[in-house]
């Protein structure tokens, strides 16, 4: 077989429209909504994504035919529910390529997962005079839990700076890894800027000094393939609702050795193996960190969301969103008065910008009148706004179902803002 013969086959598969955005849109009932007489243009995916029918159906199916409390009853439904719950854990494990299902802990979301690590690992390992290192582009959820910990322990919160493009200064980051640094907490993708952080290098640098790294992956998991073992992340947190899943469910991945050594987070059902008034023996992983009846319907929905992403293909979603982001960067960047905030070389999904002389809040209202949903404000990242000396930005963020036509609608919307404020 000659090499020439192989080429046309590859070309054929490359030109085949394997990603059909219109087909994907049909799976999302909410996209048929009309807003103020216009078709909904939903560009607020970094806040929360919409849900495909398969996820909505999974929630309904759970309550219609599977609902029972798990890990308890000997009856039929309890067994069905328990099996479904643990199957979902396996789906999540495979999704992020964790080594064991016991390393997958269900939480209410990313925020709870970060708090869990700060309050267990953090409280056990961070003492007076120690340091916690974060980055300048963190979401409040990856600042405040560490601030609370530092305050309690008399430790210091250190912040690795970024440049004017919104890229982490890796050298500065490494310089801040000191003898007193007990834990690093960093976002994988910035929610306000879209920057993809060089996590592999950051983690390697921290590990070279024996420091574990907690990753806030809320904005990464919906947009790029995440492999926690390839990253060598010690902890990795994400939320279901930003990746086509339901609200109220999230995941903490943690390496077994770390999780085993950590004290539990909350006390209650499911996290214990035996209780007497004198002593309680904690359950094994992952149940040790899952006190109380979990969000079983949410877990079913999260599983359906991952299956949706796997079916479409995370690489294809990433490629589509990247194309949209490039297109939007060009279109929006060319509009008069628009200044893009966050122009890192490596970005995912997020286009943040400000418009000369018009406050983002006014832009948000005018866009809304045209059916366009964007986020305006500080995006729960006030230090990022301060870094760029702006009170707020307009943020458009993309998902698998967004189109270039929607980017064009956004550009028309911004021109309309110009007309109103002319």
């Amino acid at each position, binding site marked *: 077989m000659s090499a020439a013969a192989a080429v046309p086959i590859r070309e054929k598969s490359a030109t085949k429209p394997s990603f059909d955005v219109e087909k994907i849109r049909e799976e999302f009932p909410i996209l048929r909504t009309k807003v103020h007489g216009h078709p909904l243009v939903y560009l607020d995916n970094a806040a929360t994504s919409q849900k495909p029918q398969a996820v909505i159906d999974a929630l309904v199916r759970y309550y219609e035919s599977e609902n029972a409390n798990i890990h308890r009853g000997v009856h039929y439904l309890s067994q069905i529910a328990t099996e479904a719950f643990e199957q979902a854990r396996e789906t999540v494990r495979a999704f992020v390529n964790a080594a064991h299902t016991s390393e997958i802990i269900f939480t209410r979301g990313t925020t709870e997962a970060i708090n869990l690590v700060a309050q267990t690992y953090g409280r056990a390992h961070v003492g007076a005079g120690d340091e916690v290192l974060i980055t300048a582009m963190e979401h409040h959820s990856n600042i405040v839990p560490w601030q609370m910990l530092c305050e309690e322990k008399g430790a210091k919160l250190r912040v690795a700076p970024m440049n004017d493009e919104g890229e982490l200064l890796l050298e500065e980051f490494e310089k801040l890894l000191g003898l007193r640094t007990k834990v690093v907490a960093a976002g994988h993708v910035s929610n306000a800027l879209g920057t993809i952080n060089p996590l592999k290098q950051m983690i390697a640098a921290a590990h070279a000094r024996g420091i574990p790294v907690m990753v806030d992956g809320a904005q990464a998991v919906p947009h790029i393939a995440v492999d926690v073992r390839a990253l060598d992340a010690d902890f990795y947190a994400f939320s279901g609702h930003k990746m086509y899943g339901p609200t109220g469910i999230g995941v903490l991945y943690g390496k077994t050795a770390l999780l085993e050594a950590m004290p539990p987070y909350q006390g209650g059902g499911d996290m214990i193996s035996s209780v007497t008034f004198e002593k309680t023996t904690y359950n094994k992983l992952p149940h040790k960190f899952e006190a109380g009846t979990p969000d079983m319907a949410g877990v079913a929905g999260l599983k359906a969301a991952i299956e949706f992403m796997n079916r479409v293909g995370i690489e294809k979603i990433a490629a589509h969103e990247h194309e949209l982001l490039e297109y939007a960067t060009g279109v929006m960047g060319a509009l008069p008065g628009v200044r893009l905030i966050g122009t890192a070389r490596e970005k995912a999904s997020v286009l943040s910008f400000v418009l000369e002389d018009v*406050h983002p*809040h006014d832009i948000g209202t005018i866009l809304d*009148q045209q059916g366009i949903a964007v986020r305006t404000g500080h995006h729960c990242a006030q230090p990022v706004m301060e870094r760029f000396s702006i009170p707020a930005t307009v943020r458009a963020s993309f998902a698998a179902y967004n189109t270039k036509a929607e980017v064009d609608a956004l550009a028309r919307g911004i021109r309309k803002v110009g007309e*109103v*404020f002319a």
Partner: protein
Amino acid sequence: MPELRDLYQEVILEHSKAPRNFKALEGANHKAEGYNPLCGDRFTVYLEMDGDKIREVGFQGAGCAISKASASMMTQSVKGKTKAEAEKIFAQFHELVTGHSQEHEGELGKLAVFSGVSEFPMRVKCATLAWHTLEAALEGKQEKISTE
């Protein structure tokens, strides 16, 4: 369907671009800071009180067109008024922008241009931020007030 022009009336746009009394008062004896954490709008209202009367009023800060115009027109409407009169205007203004009552629209004079805000519930806080701050300044409160 609410119309954008109802919200962004010419007078409002004009005040947002060229706010009146947009200055810190050196002789201020009352002052308060207002903050809307939702959007980051932040204003300081300065009052020069002569007994019960607002002799001079000024404001500084940054915010959206609605909040800035509202602050600007507020300073015009309360200058020379007593504390009780200013509070009454705020009460009527509040009823107007929240859509509870339009019965005082006539009494509000120029401020009636903000009636369109009631069609945009998410923007009520923008329109009232400066007023809440004024109220705090009149009460002589020194702490920062927040719309949340």
